[in-house]
């Protein structure tokens, strides 16, 4: 017993010590992990939460950005934007309509162009890498400089009118330019946005296509299914989750983006291309230093709520496709 007693402690101590060591190691690992993410968390707390809080608070106030105090107005900014202000509300409604049209058109256009393009790229072996890079160029180059280039292309003496006239389709040319004509200004901007968003969508589709088991396609082909049937009944159903993600990205980008509208038309002609993002920017910085930062902030939060609803919808759609 004594011998037992004298011999057993080291044997029992070993596992205890090992457990302690493991616990210490684990704690150290947690600490290291937390230390690594700490800068990001702190940055988020300082920059993210602070600015979010600041922005929410500002949406209940009137301020011009430099006066020493804010003028609290409660929910007035939201009421004005939605219905109360006879000047602002109709403009916001018109901008919301344009934004909705652009969101639907850009999303649909992106899918309709990117999917066939990805299917074609997936079906070829030669030059695939080169073509992929070429098709990706719009995404790499898109930005302010490219928007200016598009303006030149779309102006009265621009490349598109010139091309239409030179191939005998002069009746389709727009004498005021595509951006100066109220019937074509918004569609022209939608085309430019689709041009900018197709590359990423195409790459996502391509990745999805390459993940499809080739034996599925071979089996379908052996059963006599042609290319169109294979795409419709096999490829498309398998790509629905990717499509949902692409549509959501397009919707979000179009809803929140305003640079293209600011640079190419500034909402014109006569408000035909005004969108919510641009309206918020104009309220913030283009009102001759009037105290409209609160209204701009409130509009930003309304856009955020709409984006949130879209995200929830997207999550449900994604769950439904699984």
């Amino acid at each position: 017993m004594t011998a037992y007693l004298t011999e057993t402690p080291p044997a029992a101590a070993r596992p205890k010590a090992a457990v302690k060591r493991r616990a210490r190691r684990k704690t150290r690992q947690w600490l290291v992990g937390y230390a690594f993410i700490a800068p990001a968390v702190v940055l988020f707390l300082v920059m993210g939460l602070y600015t979010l809080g600041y922005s929410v608070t500002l949406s209940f106030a009137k301020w011009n950005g430099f006066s020493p105090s804010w003028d609290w107005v409660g929910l007035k900014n939201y009421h004005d934007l939605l219905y109360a202000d006879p000047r602002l509300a109709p403009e916001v409604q018109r901008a919301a309509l344009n934004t909705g049209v652009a969101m639907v058109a850009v999303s649909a256009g992106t899918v309709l162009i990117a999917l066939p393009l990805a299917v074609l790229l997936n079906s070829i072996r030669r030059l695939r890498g080169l073509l992929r890079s070429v098709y990706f160029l719009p995404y790499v180059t898109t930005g302010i400089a490219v928007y200016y280039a598009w303006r030149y292309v779309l102006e009265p003496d621009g490349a598109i009118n010139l091309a239409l006239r030179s191939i005998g389709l002069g009746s389709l040319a727009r004498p005021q330019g595509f951006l100066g004509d109220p019937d074509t200004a918004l569609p022209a901007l939608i085309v430019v946005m689709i041009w900018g968003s197709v590359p990423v969508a195409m790459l996502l589709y391509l990745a999805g296509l390459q993940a499809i088991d080739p034996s599925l396609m071979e089996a379908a082909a052996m059963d006599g299914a042609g290319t169109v049937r294979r795409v419709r009944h096999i490829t498309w159903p398998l790509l629905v989750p990717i499509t949902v993600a692409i549509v959501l990205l397009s919707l979000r980008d179009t809803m929140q983006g305003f640079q293209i509208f600011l640079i190419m038309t500034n909402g014109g002609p006569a408000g035909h291309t005004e969108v919510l993002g641009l309206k918020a920017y104009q309220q913030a910085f283009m009102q001759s230093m009037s105290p409209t930062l609160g209204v701009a902030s409130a509009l930003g939060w309304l856009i955020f709520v709409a984006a949130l609803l879209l995200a929830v919808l997207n999550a449900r759609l994604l769950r439904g496709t699984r």
Partner: protein
Amino acid sequence: MTGRRRVVAALAAATLGLAAAGCGGDDDSGTSDATISMWTFKRTHVAALEQAAATFKEKTGITVKVEAFTPDDVFTSKIQSAAQTRDLPDVLELHAGGEDMRVGGGGLLTDLKGDFDEAKLQRFLPSTREAGRVTDERKAKIEELANATVGTLYSVPFTAGTFGIVYANKDKMAAAGLDPDTPPKTWEEFLTYLQATTKVDAKQGGLSLGLKVTQTGFNWVYEQLAFAYLGADRFKALFGQQAGQGFASADGIKTLELYSQLKPYWIPGASALGIDEADVAFAQGKSAFNVGGTFTMAFLSQNDMKPEKLLTFPVPPATGGKVSDLRLAPLALTGLAVTETSKQREASVKWLDFLTGAEGAGIFAKASLDLPATDLGSQAETLIGKDLAALQKFFTGPPESMYDAADKSFRPPDYDEVEVGNPLLKMSPLGEVAPAATGAELDKVLAAMWQSK
């Protein structure tokens, strides 16, 4: 020995420290070697301001550093962020009669009343003298002035001028068989000029204006045309709340019809051009006529359009109207202000004094081709050159013929010119609505402005 060295070193350090503190002091006791900073929103002013600053340095030893932030939204956000960090410059050039009031009312500007007394303000054109002053009317209209004292002078006038000046390309006029030295006397004659130049060159013979900034059509052409046709009282009534006197009235529709006669003559794509782009198009020969303000001369010149190639005239009045020789009252376009946070107040005020004096204003105007608010009197042509002095002739005339863009008394308190610009743009050049429907829409817009206050 070591102890003595320590004492000597400590004394030396203290002396150096005191000397350094003396050099970097915040007081205004010595301004001769001061450096002040100035921000403007007009890039066309920078070179001219630097030229004036060079002379100012020779005279006073004070250095002025000028920076431009454009376009306006960038300038606005720059001021907003600098105000937060208390990093504003010493001097600001601001839009006069509104922006300066908001910035001043926001507590960013110092009161210049003591520096520019009544006697000193006499140097400015009469209609511009009080542009930077807080008045009862301004206090009632501008929220930021709620706590401001009436009489406070937030800015002094710097540049003056007016809108509604037509610039004609003499070469294109000559090519169309028109006398390049004879401006049209009436609106109808102006339309025949446009007809002639567009007949010669349909694409590049028309009228340019930066209609992407929608209010330009309303502010720079329509108002002058309507004022001349209706006379001051009936013109002002268009903006009022009296039923039957607004834009949908016979007066309103008639003047809108006159404006809509321009529709065939706008250059292609005018509705997509910004103000600068329209001026550039004119300078590049893409239009025969261009509407702007007195300030447009500077920009055209910077874009290689020589003043001697230009014929200038105010928007011509329509036949049968109340005014047959339209004159345009000059208003202060920009003002100069000293910021509340400036540590070089005395030097900054000296710079303002120089820049608005005859010598400084002359240097600036000649270099920038922008008209100063300083009344140069008989010296004008000598100081600013004949081309610029020629523009000043539109400023004088009988009061009943004088359109004054600065008169806001008859407009709604929170008047927004962008909102009246859009309906006009839809009528011409877009052609989406007729004059009668445009009149009704304008009345609706103005009613909303009256209602929202």
